[in-house]
């Protein structure tokens, strides 16, 4: 028996397949596009083309589009799934997970292998992947490009926490002839600031701390977060699949 997890986020849709003995057999990420339904259908076709049938095995959906996955047997929230997925990837049972998603940022504390406490930012895109995307666009690059640029920058900060105002600030920085590298640095710094402030509000304390979600490969962001929180931030190359893996694990858990 295989276990399938589907994670429909606001920007990307992911799937992960785990075998009975807990090996990651398959994973894939595609853009969500404008329709969660279509994205879930595309994932289904992808799975089938690779020999996995989501209808024949326990399939759990998560993410903000979790209700748009008609073939899933169950829905579990992204909080629970990210926690389970991250604990599985990093093999830990006590610590903190920071997930920077497209739409929201989550900070999840786990102990004894279960969620103890979490915080989700409210109705504001500052400090989320969306913020980074908008800013990257203003700098005529993409998220990965922005991370790269920022490594060579410094010295500039943006004060606005709100995406709309921050964008205006960036445009005026560009107009003033500020170096793109420095602006990219300022953008990452502002995200890290906002996220770190949330983490501090939760009093996450010391201990294991990992970053999941689409930005987990951005070394500059990790370094900046680590600096602001005064502790090491770990990530995993499959970190963006934490939600999908957690969903698959939820199917397995229910079964046992």
């Amino acid at each position, binding site marked *: 028996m295989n276990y399938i997890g589907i994670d429909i986020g606001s920007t990307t849709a992911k799937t992960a397949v785990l075998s009975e003995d807990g090996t990651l057999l398959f994973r894939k990420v595609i853009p969500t596009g404008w329709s969660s339904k279509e994205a879930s259908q595309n994932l289904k076709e992808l799975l089938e083309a690779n020999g996995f049938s989501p209808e024949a095995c326990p399939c759990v959906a998560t993410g*903000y589009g979790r209700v748009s996955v008609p073939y899933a047997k169950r829905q579990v*929230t*992204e*909080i629970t799934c990210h926690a389970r997925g991250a604990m599985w990837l990093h093999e830990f049972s006590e610590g903190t997970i920071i997930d920077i998603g497209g739409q929201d940022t989550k900070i999840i504390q786990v102990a004894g292998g*279960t*969620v*103890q*406490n979490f915080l989700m930012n*409210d*109705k504001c895109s500052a400090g989320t992947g969306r913020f980074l995307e908008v800013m990257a666009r203003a700098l005529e690059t993409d998220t990965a490009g922005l991370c790269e640029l920022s490594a060579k920058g410094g010295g500039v900060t943006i004060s606005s926490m709100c995406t709309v105002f921050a964008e205006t600030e960036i445009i005026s920085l560009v107009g003033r002839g500020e170096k793109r590298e420095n602006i990219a640095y300022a953008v990452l710094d502002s995200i890290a600031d906002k996220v770190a402030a949330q983490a501090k509000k939760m009093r996450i304390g010391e201990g294991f701390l990992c970053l999941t979600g689409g930005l987990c490969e951005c070394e500059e962001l990790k370094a900046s977060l680590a600096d602001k929180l005064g502790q090491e931030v770990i990530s995993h190359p499959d970190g963006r699949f934490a939600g999908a893996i957690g969903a698959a694990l939820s199917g397995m858990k229910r079964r046992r």
Partner: protein
Amino acid sequence: MNLVQELPEVFETFAEQRRNSFLTVKKIKEQGIPVVGSYCTYFPTEIAMAAGAATVSLCSTSDETISAAEEDLPKNLCPLIKSSYGFAKTDKCPFFYFSDVVVGESTCDGKKKMYELMGEFKNVFIMELPNSQRDAVLPMWKDEILRLKAYLEELFGVEITEEKVREAVKLNNDIRRAMKNFYSVMQHEPAPIKGGDLFKVLYGTGFNFNRKQIPADLAALTEKIEKEYADGKMLDSRPRILITGCPIGGVTEKVIRAVEDNGGVVVAFENCSGAKSQDRLVDEEAEDIYEAIARRYLDIGCSVMTPNPNRLELMGRLIDEYQVDGVVEMTLQACHTYNIESSTIRKYVTTEKNIPYMSVETDYSQQDVGQLNTRITAFLEMLE
């Protein structure tokens, strides 16, 4: 009340009570009975009752009039204040329209300054509520109650006798006891009914002008629920949630729904829509009945008080008595007192009572229903 009806129908009757009372209030006015409107649990109803007036809560619970209110009030103000002011200003609330006077208290800053503006087009009487519950401030609050008494006597041309006040105290205590008995059905595990239905009764009862009838109605309903429970009619076992924070009603019932649509059950309301406004009684035997009334109201554990130990005391008691698995606090956007106090509540719930706590900040829109569902579901998954 017709108790031959099935429970769901009975709950619906309560849910419709507010709307049905629109007509009643008109009739009451036609009979020449004065009406006193209020916005807050600190309003000492007994005084108005003793003046022979009907009392009604004007607290607004919809976003319909917020944009009208924002013509006069700042945008970043608590939606309860904006909506209440908006309904008053646009004359869309029949209760407000028929109120001879509106009694407000100096609770939070937003409300007390809003009353000033409201006073420009309505008869508003503002009572100065102290910021603390120390014995030293009790005489001042008692004076305010006496000032209200004198004002109503003059306004309605009546005499408020001590006998009438004691009568009102007795009746209100009976109502509070009946309310408490009623919501105590939720102490059962599994719960007999949904918190949403419990809420309909708590909320609807506040709009029943036939106050003398309330204790008997509630007693009959409680008995019916207990009897059906004994016959095995109950929910399945699910995570038991206590709701605390700002007053709930109308649009913000979305929080109750988010809990109950996603597998939990609300077993207790600590806020003003529930236990906070019912839990304490006035000492009926007190020699100085006005002081007893003053004490009872001053002791309400609202976040406008500093310090506010009574909120923790009541919450702790409810957590134990109702076998609560988790606490959800609902705060309204821009409500400073509750938003700040939430950090004290979190600490108390998680370290003294050792159960999980979550706070959600919301407003009178439907925009955040998706996110509310996700967050509350995640909280419930955590309790599993």
